[in-house]
């Protein structure tokens, strides 16, 4: 039951993009087509889960015993950067089709604040365990996927719409994101 609450809270109530503003860069940057946003979501799911596991273990078994908690930010970002490189190399060798689908998105993920953000949030969970952190990471990446795919579908429709000159480009996208966020606000109080 506890896990179901974490999942619903992360996907709908505290949606990582629309309520917590993490991962806005890819959300606005690679959402012009549904297909690219699906690819990005896959890459985020993959990296976010592995990064959270790695940083959770690192924090629990190395940083805390040594009293180096304040080095959290530096170690996590290095772990994530190294991990992204490693995942890229391994995928290229082991599963070329998967690499082909996710390859271009992987380098972008290092600077995706959602990955670092979830890794930091996951170690702060109440009576945390590795399983809880993993579920939290997966649920958040599903939340990211939901937000970016819905947003990309709306943007594809916007291509055909007649938009006032001054609103073209960034402003109309932000406005759409605002309305989407307003819709997600409706889930408040669900858990």
């Amino acid at each position, binding site marked *: 039951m506890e896990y179901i609450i974490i999942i619903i809270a992360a996907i709908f109530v505290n949606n990582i993009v629309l309520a917590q503003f993490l991962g806005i860069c890819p959300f606005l940057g690679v959402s012009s087509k549904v297909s690219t946003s699906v690819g990005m979501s896959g890459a985020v799911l993959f990296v976010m889960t592995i990064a959270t596991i790695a940083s959770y273990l690192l924090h629990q078994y190395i940083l805390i015993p040594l009293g180096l908690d304040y080095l959290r930010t530096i170690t996590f970002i290095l772990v994530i*950067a190294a991990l992204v490189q490693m995942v890229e190399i391994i995928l290229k060798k082991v599963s070329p089709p998967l690499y082909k689908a996710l390859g271009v998105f992987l380098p972008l993920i290092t600077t995706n604040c959602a990955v670092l953000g979830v890794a930091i949030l996951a170690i702060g969970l109440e009576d945390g365990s590795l399983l809880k952190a993993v579920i939290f990471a997966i649920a958040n990446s599903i939340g990211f996927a939901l937000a970016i795919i819905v947003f990309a579908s709306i943007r594809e429709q916007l291509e055909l719409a007649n938009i006032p000159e001054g609103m073209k480009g960034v402003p109309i996208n932000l*406005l759409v994101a605002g309305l989407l966020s307003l819709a997600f606000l409706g889930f408040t109080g669900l858990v």
Partner: protein
Amino acid sequence: MTKNIDQKQNFLKGIIKENPVFIMLLGMCPTLGVTSSAFNGLGMGVATLFVLLMSNIVVSLIKTQIPSKVRIPAFIIIIASFVTIVEMVLEAFIPFLYEQLGIFIPLIVVNCLILGRAESFASKNNLWSSIVDALGMGIGFIIALTVLGATREILGSGSIFEMKFVSEDANTFILFILPPGAFIALAYLSVLFNKISIKTFS
């Protein structure tokens, strides 16, 4: 470096022509995440300016020592060190702001504005130009965050910098201090910014 850069232009470009938030769309996560009040926006802006300035200085000083293949990880370590300093200083001296900004303080590391300036400016220019560039960009970022924070605070809580100018029980647009308000306020502010900058500079 033989080319001379007009320092005034170099400074002003960060504020207007290449404003990190309104024009370049860099560092959007903190921009939207912490601007529920003008004070938070200002605090985040100042923290970012400090990290940007220090990282530009260090990168510019040691740019010839860093092999180009590992420059990105090297930049990230430099930035992360200064972010850790900011995090510890804020926690010790301004705990109120530390609580308010929360997760967005460690996330200054992945603010694309800072890495972007290190990569595209500080690693190619001399110390003085890099300092001016960091100040221009940082102040542009502060202005954007403070204006957005003030707009949301005025509409959402009827106050500015915590000073209330409507009566306690007045109805305000609470929407603007909730997450959707961030997107909507920024959308209209960037329309306004585009309009003003086009009018003034063409």
